[in-house]
Protein backbone atom coordinates (compact mmCIF):
# COMPACT_ATOMS: atom_id res chain seq x y z
CA UNK A 1 0.00 0.00 0.00
CA UNK A 2 1.81 3.01 -1.36
CA UNK A 3 0.85 6.59 -0.47
CA UNK A 4 -0.48 8.44 -3.50
CA UNK A 5 2.04 11.23 -2.88
CA UNK A 6 4.86 8.91 -3.91
CA UNK A 7 3.33 8.58 -7.37
CA UNK A 8 2.99 12.36 -7.57
CA UNK A 9 6.64 12.79 -6.56
CA UNK A 10 7.66 10.30 -9.24
CA UNK A 11 5.48 12.10 -11.79
CA UNK A 12 6.93 15.51 -10.97
CA UNK A 13 10.48 14.13 -11.13
CA UNK A 14 9.87 12.60 -14.55
CA UNK A 15 8.16 15.81 -15.70
CA UNK A 16 11.17 17.90 -14.64
CA UNK A 17 13.62 15.62 -16.46
CA UNK A 18 11.46 15.93 -19.57
CA UNK A 19 11.38 19.72 -19.33
CA UNK A 20 15.17 19.85 -18.93
CA UNK A 21 15.49 17.68 -22.04
CA UNK A 22 13.18 19.89 -24.09
CA UNK A 23 15.00 23.06 -23.05
CA UNK A 24 18.62 21.95 -23.32
CA UNK A 25 19.00 19.48 -26.18
CA UNK A 26 19.71 20.53 -29.76
CA UNK A 27 18.61 17.36 -31.52
CA UNK A 28 14.92 17.63 -32.45
CA UNK A 29 14.47 13.86 -32.13
CA UNK A 30 15.63 13.93 -28.51
CA UNK A 31 13.32 16.89 -27.86
CA UNK A 32 10.39 14.81 -29.16
CA UNK A 33 11.47 11.95 -26.86
CA UNK A 34 11.54 14.36 -23.91
CA UNK A 35 7.96 15.33 -24.75
CA UNK A 36 7.07 11.64 -24.53
CA UNK A 37 8.66 11.59 -21.06
CA UNK A 38 6.50 14.57 -20.03
CA UNK A 39 3.34 12.86 -21.31
CA UNK A 40 4.23 9.72 -19.35
CA UNK A 41 4.72 11.78 -16.19
CA UNK A 42 1.21 13.17 -16.68
CA UNK A 43 -0.11 9.65 -17.18
CA UNK A 44 1.45 8.42 -13.93
CA UNK A 45 -0.32 11.20 -12.05
CA UNK A 46 -3.62 10.54 -13.83
CA UNK A 47 -3.58 6.84 -13.03
CA UNK A 48 -2.51 7.38 -9.42
CA UNK A 49 -5.27 9.90 -8.75
CA UNK A 50 -7.78 7.78 -10.66
CA UNK A 51 -7.05 4.92 -8.26
CA UNK A 52 -7.15 7.31 -5.32
CA UNK A 53 -10.64 8.53 -6.19
CA UNK A 54 -11.70 4.99 -7.08
CA UNK A 55 -12.88 6.15 -10.45
CA UNK A 56 -11.88 4.94 -13.88
CA UNK A 57 -12.07 8.39 -15.51
CA UNK A 58 -8.38 9.12 -14.97
CA UNK A 59 -7.42 5.98 -16.85
CA UNK A 60 -9.69 6.98 -19.74
CA UNK A 61 -7.93 10.34 -19.84
CA UNK A 62 -4.59 8.55 -19.82
CA UNK A 63 -5.73 6.62 -22.92
CA UNK A 64 -6.56 9.91 -24.63
CA UNK A 65 -3.12 11.24 -23.67
CA UNK A 66 -1.54 8.17 -25.29
CA UNK A 67 -3.65 8.79 -28.42
CA UNK A 68 -2.37 12.36 -28.55
CA UNK A 69 1.18 11.12 -28.08
CA UNK A 70 0.77 8.82 -31.08
CA UNK A 71 -0.63 11.63 -33.24
CA UNK A 72 2.08 14.02 -32.08
CA UNK A 73 4.86 11.51 -32.77
CA UNK A 74 3.53 10.75 -36.26
CA UNK A 75 3.20 14.40 -37.29
CA UNK A 76 6.41 15.48 -35.55
CA UNK A 77 8.49 12.74 -37.13
CA UNK A 78 6.95 13.51 -40.54
CA UNK A 79 8.00 17.13 -40.09
CA UNK A 80 11.51 16.06 -39.11
CA UNK A 81 11.84 13.88 -42.23
CA UNK A 82 10.58 16.71 -44.45
CA UNK A 83 12.95 19.16 -42.80
CA UNK A 84 15.94 16.84 -42.95
CA UNK A 85 15.35 16.37 -46.68
CA UNK A 86 15.62 20.12 -47.23
CA UNK A 87 18.35 21.17 -44.82
CA UNK A 88 20.31 17.99 -43.98
CA UNK A 89 20.21 18.74 -40.26
CA UNK A 90 18.11 17.92 -37.20
CA UNK A 91 19.43 20.68 -34.94
CA UNK A 92 16.74 22.77 -33.30
CA UNK A 93 18.74 26.01 -33.57
CA UNK A 94 19.23 25.57 -37.31
CA UNK A 95 15.50 25.27 -38.02
CA UNK A 96 15.01 28.75 -39.42
CA UNK A 97 13.40 28.24 -42.83
CA UNK A 98 11.04 31.18 -42.32
CA UNK A 99 14.04 33.48 -41.82
CA UNK A 100 15.81 34.15 -45.09
Amino acid at each position, binding site marked *: *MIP*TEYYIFLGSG*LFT*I*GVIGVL*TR*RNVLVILMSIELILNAVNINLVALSQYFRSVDGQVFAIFVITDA*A*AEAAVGL*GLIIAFFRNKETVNADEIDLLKW
Partner: protein
Amino acid sequence: MLELATFAILAAVILVSAILVITRRNAVHSVMWLIVALFGVGGIYLLQHAEFLFAVQIILYVGGIMVLFLFVVMLVNLDVAVKQARFARHWQVALLTAVLLVAQLGYALYNHGQGLNLPGHPLVSAPAGNTQAVGMALYQNYMLPVEIASLLLLVAMVGAVIMAKRKLE
Protein backbone atom coordinates in the same frame (compact mmCIF):
# COMPACT_ATOMS: atom_id res chain seq x y z
CA MET B 1 6.39 -3.97 1.96
CA LEU B 2 6.97 -5.92 -1.23
CA GLU B 3 4.75 -3.43 -3.01
CA LEU B 4 6.83 -0.52 -1.76
CA ALA B 5 10.06 -2.24 -2.80
CA THR B 6 8.63 -2.85 -6.28
CA PHE B 7 7.61 0.79 -6.49
CA ALA B 8 11.09 1.95 -5.41
CA ILE B 9 12.81 -0.24 -8.02
CA LEU B 10 10.44 0.89 -10.78
CA ALA B 11 10.82 4.56 -9.82
CA ALA B 12 14.62 4.25 -9.82
CA VAL B 13 14.57 2.55 -13.23
CA ILE B 14 12.26 5.22 -14.67
CA LEU B 15 14.20 8.21 -13.36
CA VAL B 16 17.66 6.85 -14.22
CA SER B 17 16.68 5.83 -17.74
CA ALA B 18 14.90 9.18 -18.26
CA ILE B 19 18.11 11.00 -17.31
CA LEU B 20 20.02 8.74 -19.71
CA VAL B 21 17.49 9.58 -22.47
CA ILE B 22 18.27 13.29 -22.29
CA THR B 23 22.04 12.94 -21.88
CA ARG B 24 23.06 10.34 -24.48
CA ARG B 25 24.89 11.68 -27.51
CA ASN B 26 23.61 9.07 -29.93
CA ALA B 27 19.86 9.31 -30.58
CA VAL B 28 19.57 5.51 -30.99
CA HIS B 29 20.78 5.08 -27.40
CA SER B 30 18.21 7.66 -26.31
CA VAL B 31 15.45 5.63 -27.96
CA MET B 32 16.64 2.45 -26.21
CA TRP B 33 16.64 4.12 -22.80
CA LEU B 34 13.25 5.65 -23.52
CA ILE B 35 11.93 2.13 -24.14
CA VAL B 36 13.28 1.10 -20.72
CA ALA B 37 11.58 4.12 -19.12
CA LEU B 38 8.28 3.29 -20.84
CA PHE B 39 8.45 -0.30 -19.59
CA GLY B 40 8.98 1.11 -16.10
CA VAL B 41 5.91 3.33 -16.45
CA GLY B 42 3.99 0.26 -17.61
CA GLY B 43 5.10 -1.48 -14.43
CA ILE B 44 3.75 1.45 -12.42
CA TYR B 45 0.37 1.01 -14.16
CA LEU B 46 0.41 -2.68 -13.30
CA LEU B 47 1.24 -1.86 -9.68
CA GLN B 48 -1.91 0.26 -9.59
CA HIS B 49 -4.13 -2.42 -11.10
CA ALA B 50 -4.58 -0.52 -14.34
CA GLU B 51 -4.09 -3.64 -16.43
CA PHE B 52 -5.71 -2.33 -19.60
CA LEU B 53 -3.51 0.76 -19.58
CA PHE B 54 -0.47 -1.49 -19.09
CA ALA B 55 -1.38 -3.42 -22.22
CA VAL B 56 -1.98 -0.18 -24.13
CA GLN B 57 1.38 1.14 -22.93
CA ILE B 58 3.28 -1.92 -24.11
CA ILE B 59 1.45 -2.43 -27.42
CA LEU B 60 1.01 1.20 -28.46
CA TYR B 61 3.93 3.03 -26.88
CA VAL B 62 6.71 0.48 -26.92
CA GLY B 63 5.47 -1.46 -29.94
CA GLY B 64 4.18 1.42 -32.03
CA ILE B 65 5.53 4.85 -31.22
CA MET B 66 9.03 3.70 -30.31
CA VAL B 67 9.39 1.68 -33.51
CA LEU B 68 8.36 4.82 -35.40
CA PHE B 69 11.01 6.79 -33.52
CA LEU B 70 13.67 4.18 -34.21
CA PHE B 71 12.70 4.12 -37.88
CA VAL B 72 13.05 7.89 -38.20
CA VAL B 73 16.33 7.94 -36.25
CA MET B 74 17.71 5.39 -38.70
CA LEU B 75 16.30 7.34 -41.66
CA VAL B 76 17.81 10.63 -40.57
CA ASN B 77 21.54 10.32 -40.98
CA LEU B 78 23.04 11.21 -37.61
CA ASP B 79 26.76 10.84 -38.28
CA VAL B 80 27.14 14.60 -38.19
CA ALA B 81 24.95 15.18 -35.16
CA VAL B 82 26.95 12.70 -33.06
CA LYS B 83 30.07 14.81 -33.48
CA GLN B 84 28.36 18.12 -32.69
CA ALA B 85 27.59 19.69 -29.33
CA ARG B 86 24.78 17.93 -27.52
CA PHE B 87 23.32 20.88 -25.69
CA ALA B 88 22.05 24.19 -27.00
CA ARG B 89 24.07 27.34 -26.45
CA HIS B 90 21.54 28.76 -24.00
CA TRP B 91 21.74 25.72 -21.74
CA GLN B 92 22.57 27.83 -18.65
CA VAL B 93 19.30 29.72 -19.01
CA ALA B 94 17.47 26.43 -19.58
CA LEU B 95 19.09 24.89 -16.51
CA LEU B 96 18.12 27.91 -14.41
CA THR B 97 14.53 27.55 -15.61
CA ALA B 98 14.58 23.86 -14.74
CA VAL B 99 16.00 24.56 -11.28
CA LEU B 100 13.24 27.14 -10.71
CA LEU B 101 10.68 24.53 -11.80
CA VAL B 102 12.13 21.97 -9.37
CA ALA B 103 12.09 24.56 -6.56
CA GLN B 104 8.49 25.47 -7.32
CA LEU B 105 7.32 21.85 -7.49
CA GLY B 106 9.27 20.96 -4.37
CA TYR B 107 7.87 23.92 -2.48
CA ALA B 108 4.30 23.14 -3.49
CA LEU B 109 4.60 19.43 -2.73
CA TYR B 110 6.48 20.00 0.53
CA ASN B 111 4.16 22.66 1.89
CA HIS B 112 0.88 21.31 0.62
CA GLY B 113 1.79 17.65 0.28
CA GLN B 114 0.54 17.03 3.78
CA GLY B 115 -2.49 19.17 2.98
CA LEU B 116 -3.19 16.87 0.05
CA ASN B 117 -3.69 14.16 2.63
CA LEU B 118 -3.64 11.26 0.22
CA PRO B 119 -3.08 8.10 2.23
CA GLY B 120 -2.64 4.99 0.19
CA HIS B 121 -5.35 2.45 0.47
CA PRO B 122 -5.34 -1.18 -0.50
CA LEU B 123 -6.17 -1.30 -4.16
CA VAL B 124 -9.00 -3.42 -5.38
CA SER B 125 -9.69 -4.03 -9.03
CA ALA B 126 -13.20 -3.43 -10.24
CA PRO B 127 -15.21 -6.57 -9.60
CA ALA B 128 -15.67 -7.28 -13.28
CA GLY B 129 -12.07 -6.40 -14.13
CA ASN B 130 -10.25 -3.26 -15.11
CA THR B 131 -10.59 -3.73 -18.86
CA GLN B 132 -14.36 -4.00 -18.65
CA ALA B 133 -14.60 -0.91 -16.44
CA VAL B 134 -12.43 1.14 -18.82
CA GLY B 135 -14.34 -0.14 -21.83
CA MET B 136 -17.67 0.75 -20.27
CA ALA B 137 -16.45 4.27 -19.46
CA LEU B 138 -14.95 4.71 -22.95
CA TYR B 139 -18.04 3.63 -24.85
CA GLN B 140 -20.69 5.11 -22.57
CA ASN B 141 -19.57 8.31 -20.88
CA TYR B 142 -16.80 9.17 -23.34
CA MET B 143 -18.43 8.23 -26.64
CA LEU B 144 -17.93 11.61 -28.34
CA PRO B 145 -14.29 12.04 -27.18
CA VAL B 146 -13.50 8.58 -28.57
CA GLU B 147 -14.90 9.59 -31.95
CA ILE B 148 -12.95 12.87 -31.86
CA ALA B 149 -9.77 10.95 -30.95
CA SER B 150 -10.27 8.63 -33.93
CA LEU B 151 -10.69 11.66 -36.19
CA LEU B 152 -7.52 13.18 -34.70
CA LEU B 153 -5.60 10.00 -35.48
CA LEU B 154 -6.91 10.04 -39.05
CA VAL B 155 -5.83 13.67 -39.51
CA ALA B 156 -2.42 12.91 -38.00
CA MET B 157 -1.98 9.92 -40.32
CA VAL B 158 -2.87 11.92 -43.43
CA GLY B 159 -0.66 14.80 -42.27
CA ALA B 160 2.32 12.54 -41.61
CA VAL B 161 1.99 10.89 -45.02
CA ILE B 162 1.73 14.24 -46.82
CA MET B 163 4.69 15.75 -44.98
CA ALA B 164 6.97 12.75 -45.35
CA LYS B 165 6.13 12.34 -49.04
CA ARG B 166 9.00 13.08 -51.36
CA LYS B 167 7.23 15.52 -53.62
CA LEU B 168 3.73 16.91 -53.81
CA GLU B 169 2.26 16.90 -57.27
